[in-house]
């Protein structure tokens, strides 16, 4: 008798979603789907607004990565004004973006995922949370909280507040950096480096214990996409796009992101509010690609900062070609945190960082603009059209998590097929299905942050709707 298992809601991610797993008569998994159950509508509700409001308006999409939207949106507005913003403004926006990636990666790795890594996938869900980590490995928990706080404080020092600052504006930033604030950040860099490196050493010791998970957590060939500098180094703010295949071979390089409509399609699935972008030349769904930390580290020629480069060289030894297991998003995230700290240090020690020339002003000069940056979760794209008075007439946003939609579905299926068997359901199995989603650190919105206390209900349903088995937690 075929059955459906529903995991609703999925916990320890940003936002609301559920997972359904379909079993056949023999209790084998025949399909598994990841559904995003919330609808936002931002592309529609911004219509008619003055484009100068767009950075702060779109930042409200998310409370975890408002800065990422501020950056991508402000870049789009720069394109509408057709201005080249002052170099100091570029550097300051970069520092802000890197601080954002640092704090978000810390949240994902330490607060949301480390419970699985420290306590094990099969641990009691009541202990398997950040407080459990504090009990088992207090130094790790402290490092995580410290690093997230450091990222948030850089944002507050630059932009005035931690969440939803309005400092990034079309044409640059609204206020220059002061020497005392710069120094307050720079003096904490050595401590930050120490803590990230300590965590990396720990991760490298333990990830071998997760052999089964590494083999089955989204371990499949796909394309990888992300921004790179002109020299092929890791780039979070500017640059052009590169796509590599599963062997690590470059498919296309230095693609101007503004050409995205020519080669990127967006498919709509009937059972999810999340759109599924794909690489058009390979069609749907074969044009599946991944973005985010793992993708970025798979496609670059080198990182571009000394310590992160050393770690990256080791990371590249994991597999020949690209590292395919989504489990290693965790590893990539830690290396990127190291890069963020080093890069922030470099930028803040630049000679012009305290310049007060931080804003270009102009009326709208182009009626259409596209802005792309790297968010913690991957490539983020904003695309606006305005009228001659500067009012929004159309918007399209391809959110970092959306890029991973096809990959997340495929990963859920892979994990479910390996771990779920119809004759028994247990917490460890369900947690693995959730945990694979967590490796992508999906940001479905800013609305909910659950630490395992959210109730989760799983039902096994017969074709006639009869509940055969029910499991509750929380």
């Amino acid at each position, binding site marked *: 008798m075929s059955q459906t298992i529903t995991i609703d809601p999925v916990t320890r991610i940003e936002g609301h979603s559920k997972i359904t797993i379909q079993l056949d008569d023999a209790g084998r998994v025949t399909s598994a789907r990841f559904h995003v159950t919330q609808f936002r509508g931002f592309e529609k509700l911004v219509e008619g607004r003055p484009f*100068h409001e767009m950075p702060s308006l779109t930042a409200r999409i998310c409370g975890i990565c408002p800065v990422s939207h501020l950056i991508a949106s402000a870049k789009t507005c720069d394109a509408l004004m057709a201005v080249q913003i002052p170099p100091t403004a570029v550097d300051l926006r970069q520092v802000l973006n890197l601080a954002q990636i640092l704090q978000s990666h810390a949240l994902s790795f330490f607060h949301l995922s480390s419970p699985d890594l420290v306590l094990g996938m099969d641990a009691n869900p009541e202990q398997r949370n950040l407080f459990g980590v504090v009990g088992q490995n207090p130094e790790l928990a402290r490092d995580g909280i410290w690093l997230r706080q450091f990222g948030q404080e850089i944002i507050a020092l630059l932009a005035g507040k931690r969440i939803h600052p309005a400092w990034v504006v079309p044409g640059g930033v609204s206020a220059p950096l002061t020497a005392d604030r710069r120094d307050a950040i720079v003096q904490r860099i050595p401590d930050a480096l120490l803590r990230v490196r300590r965590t990396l050493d720990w991760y490298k010791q333990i990830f071998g214990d997760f052999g089964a998970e590494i083999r089955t957590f989204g371990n499949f060939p796909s394309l990888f996409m992300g921004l790179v500098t002109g020299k092929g180094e890791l780039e979070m703010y500017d640059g052009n796009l590169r796509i590599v295949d599963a062997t690590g071979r470059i498919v296309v390089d230095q693609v101007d992101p503004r050409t995205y409509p020519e080669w990127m399609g967006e498919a709509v699935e009937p059972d999810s509010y999340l759109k599924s972008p794909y690489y058009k030349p390979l069609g749907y769904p074969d044009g599946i690609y991944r973005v985010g930390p793992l993708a970025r580290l798979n496609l670059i020629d080198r990182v571009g900062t000394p310590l992160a480069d050393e770690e990256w060289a080791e990371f590249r030894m994991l597999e020949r070609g690209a590292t395919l297991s989504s489990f290693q998003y965790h590893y990539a995230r830690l290396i990127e945190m190291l890069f963020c700290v080093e890069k922030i240090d470099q930028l803040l020690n630049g000679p012009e960082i305290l310049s007060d020339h931080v804003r270009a002003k102009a009326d709208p000069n182009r009626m259409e603009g596209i802005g792309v940056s790297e968010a913690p979760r991957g490539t983020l794209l904003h695309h606006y059209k305005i009228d001659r008075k500067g009012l929004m007439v159309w918007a399209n946003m391809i959110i970092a998590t959306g890029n991973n939609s096809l990959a997340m579905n495929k990963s859920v299926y892979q994990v479910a097929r390996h771990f779920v068997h119809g004759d028994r359901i247990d917490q460890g199995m369900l947690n693995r299905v959730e945990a694979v989603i967590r490796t992508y650190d999906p940001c479905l919105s800013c609305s909910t942050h659950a630490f395992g206390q959210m109730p989760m209900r799983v039902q096994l349903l017969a074709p006639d709707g009869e509940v055969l088995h029910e499991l509750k937690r929380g």
Partner: protein
Amino acid sequence: MKRPFKTRVKTLTIDGMAVGAREDETILELAQANGIFIPTLCHLEGVHDIGACRLCLVEIKGTSKLLPACMTYAEEGMEVITDSERLLTYRRQVLDLLFSERNHVCAVCVSNGHCELQWLAEKLGISHVGVPYLYPQLAVDASHSFYVLDHNRCILCTRCVRVCDEIEGAHTWDVMGRGVECRVISDLNQPWGTADSCTRCGKCVQVCPTGALFSKGKAVAEMTKKREFLPYLQLMREGRK
């Protein structure tokens, strides 16, 4: 508008405090002169009062009606209460209705942090709006080369109308329609950028209490208003007479 009679002094009490007032002084002016806070939105120092927003309502012993302090003159023996549970309830209701009528979204407003409506709501302890929002679909008028009018944030205080008429002398602004249909309009209900009477002086923008009128190109929370010019302009004009 001041009454044209000779000034005589009246004695009365505000919140139990004995005060002396000129006969042509309103309760609002008298309260402000004595350091007593009465919330206002449509009142603007330098132009005449119209008693539209009803936030300055006060209780006066001997009458069951609540009276607007900006339009009520001091009288001999009056006992005025400016702060009571009843008044607070009514004032909060006034703000509730203002918020619900248009689309006031502070978080993404150019005037966030510099808005009189927002400031008053905070001051009067409004944490939620008690009536359902109307969510009207209102267009933004960005036709002017310097300024933008966003009806979504307009509370119909008509400060813009009065300052443009009484100080600048252009009378570009006026209102049309009634009730929820009421709108501020420029010239003959045409896009602001095409209004010939507008001198582009920007007084209306500076006196607007919310983000309904703002300078073009301002990002969220960037619109600060400068109002000091108004009493100064008036003083200079009176001096010349």
